[in-house]
């Protein structure tokens, strides 16, 4: 079955359902942190494929370069040195868009079609529709999208939707030298993760597990963690990410409520006018005014 990456299942700032008759296979990228050597091949391949070249920055005392995600850096290795039970562990997490099943960015986006979720689960930004408001950043539970300083559009990992659409894997996955990155149907990735977790458990990582947070209805980028009980050890991976309740309120309840209120005021005004009529000057007052004028 094709990845059907052109079929859309969700579209930003759109209130009616998308055509959904065709069933697409959900895809996923699996990031097995226990197999990651932090070589940054994924970072380079991502930049190369997507024609991105950021600034040549500086060394800030760590290996994290560039220092943060930006419009030219859609994926980034984050390194954590952890002393655990007297042994050093170097936890290296590939940060980037998680392609949530319930994407906070898409929910927050005010521009119709600037953010779409394809039927295969990929969440993609369409910069030509982006207005640069940054609401996607506000909505994202993983702090991923970044506004470009140059064009003020928001950018993030597209899971190489252009490659996936023609049956290829994302550039980062293809390049990964150690097989820390895998790509396939979400089901297959979960199966693969099960094997990896069993292997890790056999090597003493009793808390190994899959990171596929239910708070965002699961993600299309998942992690195998050696310490699934402590996701925060991995450069602050959120323990139980969900779209912030503020965002829920803002983009959920507030919308119909406000529109309803405005409509109500409008209708109330209209019908009040019709029913009660205008508040005109009474004859009585006019007489009194005449009286007052005379008495002046």
């Amino acid at each position, binding site marked *: 079955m094709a990845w059907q*990456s*052109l*079929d*859309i299942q969700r*579209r930003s700032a*759109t*209130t*009616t359902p*998308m*055509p959904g008759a065709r069933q697409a296979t959900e895809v996923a990228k699996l990031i097995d942190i226990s197999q990651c050597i932090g*070589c*940054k*091949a994924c*970072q*380079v*391949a991502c930049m*190369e*494929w997507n024609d991105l070249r950021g600034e040549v920055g500086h060394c800030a005392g760590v290996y994290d370069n560039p220092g943060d995600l930006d419009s030219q850096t859609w994926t980034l290795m984050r390194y954590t040195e952890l002393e655990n039970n007297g042994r050093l562990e170097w936890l290296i997490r590939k940060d980037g868009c998680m392609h949530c099943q319930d994407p906070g960015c898409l929910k927050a986006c005010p521009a*119709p*079609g600037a953010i*779409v979720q*394809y039927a295969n689960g990929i969440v*993609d930004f*369409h910069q030509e529709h982006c207005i640069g408001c940054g609401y996607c950043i506000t909505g994202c539970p993983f702090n991923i999208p970044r506004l470009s300083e140059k064009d003020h559009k928001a950018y993030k990992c*597209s899971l190489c*939707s*252009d*490659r996936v*659409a*023609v049956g290829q894997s994302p*550039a980062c996955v*293809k*390049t*990964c*030298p150690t097989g820390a990155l895998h790509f396939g149907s979400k089901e297959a990735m979960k199966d693969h993760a099960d094997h990896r977790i069993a292997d890790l458990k056999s090597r003493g990582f009793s808390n190994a597990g899959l990171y596929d947070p239910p708070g965002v209805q699961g993600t299309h980028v998942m992690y195998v963690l050696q310490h699934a009980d402590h996701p925060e050890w991995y450069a602050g991976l959120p323990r139980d990410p969900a779209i912030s309740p503020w965002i829920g309120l803002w983009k959920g309840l507030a919308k119909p409520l406000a*529109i309803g209120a*405005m*409509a109500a005021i*409008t*209708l109330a005004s*209209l019908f009040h006018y019709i029913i009660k009529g205008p508040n005109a000057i009474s004859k009585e007052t006019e007489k009194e005014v005449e009286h007052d004028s005379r008495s002046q």
Partner: protein
Amino acid sequence: MNVTRRQFLQITAAGLGSSSLALLGFSPQPALAEIRNFKLARTTETRNTCPYCSVSCGVLLYSLGDKSKNVKTEIIHIEGDPDNPVNRGTLCPKGAGLLDMIHSADRLKYPEVREPGASDWKRIGWDEAFERIAKHLKSDRDANFIKTNDAGVTVNRWNTTGFLASSAASNEAGYLLHKVARGLGVVALDTQARV
């Protein structure tokens, strides 16, 4: 008064909710999004080998154009060759960044010479470069060639000009340079592989 009334009307209309939008003439949403075009669709694919480490990963060079006569071929993308049994399509960060090495601003484009004591380069042509280098080599070889050693043994060596060879150039280049060097009697030769 007009402005206020217009605002009023607009709010009224909009307040009816999104379902009425179509009445105002806004078309339904497209069913298909446009993804970024697949940039390799009409490129030429060439099989090559990564020049960095000794894993010698297979790489695929993607270049613009179909190698027709009037087109200057330009490599626009490089990725791993999935057929190569060692790298199976993967590339490390160096290999994944090969494109920028090929197109580096530091690529040399013309033969140049720095004259003795000069503070900068001077562009020269290949003929001049070959001619001048050949003359240097000949005059040093002729002046310092040793036919026999003190014991009278034929040694036929030239040890006042040294050769260092790349360990990232092809076997063919390394072989030819070795053949030429020994043919000239060079003994002062070594390769990057030593260090």
